[in-house]
């Protein structure tokens, strides 16, 4: 019953939690669930590398590692490293990299901009102009503000918005498979 399906369990568990956990037994179950259930950033980490599988970069260079970079304070913790370890995209090994400034993002394929960089966002995006880096962030209005993919939470599920125009301007083509999953796709007017 416990191992039925993740979404069902989540819902049930939630109700149970709201109804106040009265017994130790249920606490154990809840703890167990907590351990099994990926955290938000674990999910986001997985998504981050997976975006690489649905995006084509214009220029590609040999066996260069596929770098997934994080700008600003890292919200993933060890989750990102764990996710990318051993993974490869188009025969290129996936690497996680933390960078301090936008100027370092040249070798990155995917750049996650920490929400702490909200204020610096315009400068960062401008700095990244002319590069073909897929920008991802959970900063509110990120897609609207010129970012490419913005994580959003619908309920407790991680979804995303796509600014197709921004991606195309950066010379990236996004797979229709990806686009059909996006909650909103912003296109050029």
């Amino acid at each position, binding site marked *: 019953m416990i191992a039925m399906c993740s979404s069902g369990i989540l819902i049930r568990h939630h109700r149970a939690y709201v109804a106040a956990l009265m017994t130790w037994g249920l606490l154990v179950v809840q703890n167990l669930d907590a351990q099994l259930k990926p955290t938000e950033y674990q999910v986001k980490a997985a998504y981050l590398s997976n975006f690489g*599988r649905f995006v084509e970069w214009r220029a590609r260079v040999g066996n260069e590692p596929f770098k997934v970079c994080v700008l600003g304070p890292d919200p993933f913790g060890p989750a990102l490293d764990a996710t990318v370890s051993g993974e490869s995209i188009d025969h290129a090994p996936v690497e996680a990299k933390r960078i301090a400034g936008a100027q370092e993002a040249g070798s990155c394929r995917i750049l996650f901009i920490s929400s702490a960089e909200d204020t610096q966002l315009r400068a960062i995006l401008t700095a990244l102009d002319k590069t073909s880096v897929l920008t991802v962030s959970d900063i509110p209005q990120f897609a609207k503000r010129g970012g490419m993919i913005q994580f959003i939470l619908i309920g407790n*599920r991680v979804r995303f918005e796509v600014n197709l125009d921004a991606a195309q301007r950066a010379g990236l083509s996004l797979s229709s498979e990806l686009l*059909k*999953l996006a909650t909103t796709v912003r296109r050029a007017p």
Partner: protein
Amino acid sequence: MVEGRNYSIKRKLIWMNMLVSGAALLVASAAFVAYELAAFRQTLVRSLSIQAQMVGSSSASALVFSDPESANKTLSALRAAPNILSGGIYTPAGELFAAYSRNGSGEGLPLHPGSSGQIEAHRFTGQDVMLVRSIVFQGKRIGTVYIRSDLQELKDRLKRYAGIVAIVLLMSLMAAFVLSSVYQRTIARPIVQLAEIARIVSREKNYSVRAPGKYQHGEIAILVEAFNEMLAQIQRREEERKTLLMSEQEARRTAELLNRVGPIVLGELDLKKLAQKVIDLATQLSGAQFGAFARVVVNEDGTSPMLYTFSGALCEAFIEIPQPADSAAFNPKFSEKTIVRSDDITQGAPEGKPPFPFGMPDGSLPVRSYLGVPVISRFGEVMGGLIFGHCSPAMFTERHEQLVLGIAAQAAIAIDNANLFEQVRQGRLRAEETSVVLRRVNSDLEQFAYSAYHDLREPLRMVRIYTQKLEKDYGDKLGPGADLCIRYTVQGASRMEQLVSDLINYTQAGSDNPEPAAPSSAEIAFTSAISSLQEALEKCGASISHERLPQVRMHRAHLEQLFLNLTANAIKYRGEKPPEIRIRAERRQGEWVFSVQDNGIGIDPQYGEQIFGVFKRLHSAEEYSGTGIGLAICRKIVQRYGGRIWVESELRKGATFLFTVPDGEAEAGRG
């Protein structure tokens, strides 16, 4: 019935053809359908596989980004395929990610699609087919698609195939029926005809029918030919058997007839009647209209005319019964011991021989069929012949000939028998006549002897008495020589008297007494005989002993005579010692043997027989007195009773006289 028989083989052939073609067609159709269904299943699986692939590739991103709604949307595209009952997408961990069901409910989805190492697997159940396929995205298995389809189309197809097969089968069978109905005739018709003929043969026992042999095909032609050959053989054998049976029956009938003839003919001893019986029987049995028995009779004067006996219902129509002497027409010569049989005697005799005995008086009906056989005695002598006639030709067969020959043989025997009987009868008649004459002569002789005795005794007595009177009254007056003369005269007269007396005894001893003797005691007879000899016995000092004597069937006087004569003989012929006489009787093989034994002078065995003759004496009257007739009387008496008398003796060693008396029916007890 004939139609039914036809149907059976026809039907079998048609059924066989239809069965064969139907079976072949069924097998072919089944193979075809099976192949089609297998191919269709493959097609179905392949189409399911393609759909699974499409679903899988379309839902890869949804799986990657955990978007079940998108996946559900993808799955719902399966609605376009009406055969898909349900579908599902599973995470690699086996959890249901998205689901589709045609009728909206989520039922029927398996929890585990049974993913094995393979990328794709499918399974047919009775009602549906399910297929699972791994979703591989960029070399990584990211989930599993599951699709379940119903088999409606397969079933529809199956139905369609069944319909087609049924129609094809029906049409083929109809075609086969028509074709085999046409072509079975070439095989069935000759067989049906054969069967029909076999039926006729077995029911009517008619072996002369044949199967028509116009068929050219190999086996049928051989069959018909062999059948006909078999019939021909059976017919031949049947005819042989019938012929054999008929000849056997004929032989048996002939034998039976002859057996019947035998007692009738052989019992008849009168020649005339015998001849009539023979010819009547022979004519009747041979079926002749006319029969004649010609007999050769040998007369005393040396002539041997023919005697004819006729028989037959129509014999008057053929001939006027002729006198034997003047029947020139019937002048057979039975010298040839041959048989003449002619189917038509008017066409000439068989083998050119003159027909014997042949010839019919003028005006008689013409004889066509003719049969003549000789009657031959067992000494090979031709005794006559049997002649048969019939006015239709070819009436006499070999069987008649055999029959008539058999009758002729029996007739010959019967005639021989009758002749022999006649001879015996005449011989006996002659013997009886002789016997009567003899008896009369004998009686005359006895009469004569008796009267002679009476007539002779009286003169002799007178001679003796008057001679004695002469001696007494005139003895001293005559001369001395006269005494001797007188003595001799008296002696002679006495002796003559004795002789006459003995002779009459002898005659009487043999005279017939027709009544059989009652049993009488030999003891009494013996005692009586001894008492009359008492004086003589005492005079010579004889001792006499006897055992107890039995009763025998003999007149007592005769028995007494026997004992008297034999005992007197024993005294008379005594030796120097006083006589010892022993009388015994013993029983031997149905008769009593009496013996009188003495110790006298005995008898030379060469005279053992002679002494029983009349007047036979071994000694002179001077040595031993006697007439020489005693033993002859004894023998006559013994013979009269069917016994024997003889002597056992040697000279000077005594003699034993023995005589036997038959025991007769009555058991004679001793005493």
